[in-house]
């Protein structure tokens, strides 16, 4: 029987099983690859000055609600709930747990929601500053993100890191940014000797209404993905995505350009674990054995 990539990653100690599909520990070697690849992203992005912001993997629940995420992806969202009861409630809680019953039903929603994409906390933050400066804004983000989609596919983790550059400005400015990163993204992946393919794509919108949103997104070519075979050559994995949000976030958050027009936004997102997995799948599980050219691109 063929051993799956996930099993081989566990056996090599690169990923550590926690007992939950899509929730894994990472080894030092795995983290080193992510760190080095992030260094490469920064090198490619350094020609355009950006503001670096790092948010934790949880976001303000009111910002999450305002984003409209639940309209599109209710099945993927994760909320943070806590015990908010009195001492008697605590006694009941412990008894409930001891009896093996559902103790989580009385947990109360906190003000924090797990971040679904690195850029979600950014839009309300920047809108709060007032109109964008002339020339718009460019931001460098990275965060662990949560998506509730348990899977044995190591490329579909529930908690994973997303690096992003987000551009805000006029339609022309953000479209030029997206075009530039579609080219840079291909150069970047070619530099680590992985096969590159770009295709139009859609987000996994929920339900029948979602089917229409997905078709609309494709019709308008709002999303492109850079695909690399990781676990399957037939069904390739999206490792980078290039997204044009039009004025969706601008309107949602009241983001405006210097001259008062609704700002348009676009982002390039890097699925860091997916890229690391692609590197391990293509070049081998021991980084010492990787082609010297790939090692040079990553470690210098």
């Amino acid at each position, binding site marked *: 029987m063929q051993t799956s990539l996930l099993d081989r990653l566990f056996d090599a100690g690169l990923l550590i099983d926690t007992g939950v599909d899509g929730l894994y520990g990472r080894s030092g070697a795995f983290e080193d690859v992510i760190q080095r690849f992030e260094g490469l992203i920064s090198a490619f992005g350094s020609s355009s000055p950006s503001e670096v912001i790092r948010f934790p993997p949880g976001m303000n629940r009111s910002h999450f609600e305002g984003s*409209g995420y639940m*309209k599109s992806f209710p099945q993927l969202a994760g909320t943070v709930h806590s015990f908010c009861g009195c001492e008697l409630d605590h006694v009941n809680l412990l008894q409930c747990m001891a009896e093996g019953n559902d103790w989580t039903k009385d947990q109360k929603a906190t003000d924090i929601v797990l971040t679904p994409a690195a850029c979600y906390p950014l839009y309300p933050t920047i809108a709060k500053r007032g109109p964008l400066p002339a020339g718009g804004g460019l931001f460098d983000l990275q965060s662990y993100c949560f998506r509730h989609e348990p899977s044995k596919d190591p490329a579909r983790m529930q908690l994973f890191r997303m690096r992003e550059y987000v551009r805000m400005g006029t339609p022309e400015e953000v479209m030029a940014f997206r075009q530039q990163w579609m080219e840079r993204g291909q150069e970047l992946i070619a530099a680590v000797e992985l096969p590159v393919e770009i295709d139009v794509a859609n987000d996994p919108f929920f339900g*029948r*209404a979602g*089917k*229409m*949103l997905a*078709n*609309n*997104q494709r*019709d*308008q070519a709002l999303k492109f993905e850079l695909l690399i075979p990781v676990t399957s050559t037939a069904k390739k994995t999206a490792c980078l995505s290039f997204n044009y949000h039009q004025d969706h976030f601008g309107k949602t958050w009241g983001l405006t350009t210097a001259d008062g027009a609704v700002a348009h936004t676009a982002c390039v997102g890097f699925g860091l674990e997916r890229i690391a997995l692609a590197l391990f799948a293509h070049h081998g599980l021991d980084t010492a054995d990787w082609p010297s050219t790939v090692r040079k691109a990553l470690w210098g």
Partner: protein
Amino acid sequence: MTTKIRELLAKHGALPVSVETLADTTDLYEAGLSSFASVQLMLALEDAFDVEFPETLLNRKSFASIAAIRDALASLTEEAVA
């Protein structure tokens, strides 16, 4: 049918302009119909006309104008009759 479509468009389209100002062939996206509003409109049309849009019709083209919506609905109700 067109009157009902216009009524639902006014209620669910969230358009920045009055529906009376739109011709049957006016591009609704140009008039400000958002993706989310077009979905709301689609669901309201299904409810009002007791039809279900097949996946092949769940696209921008089917909701691009009042006339396009009328054609899409007509194709569904004709199928139902046949």
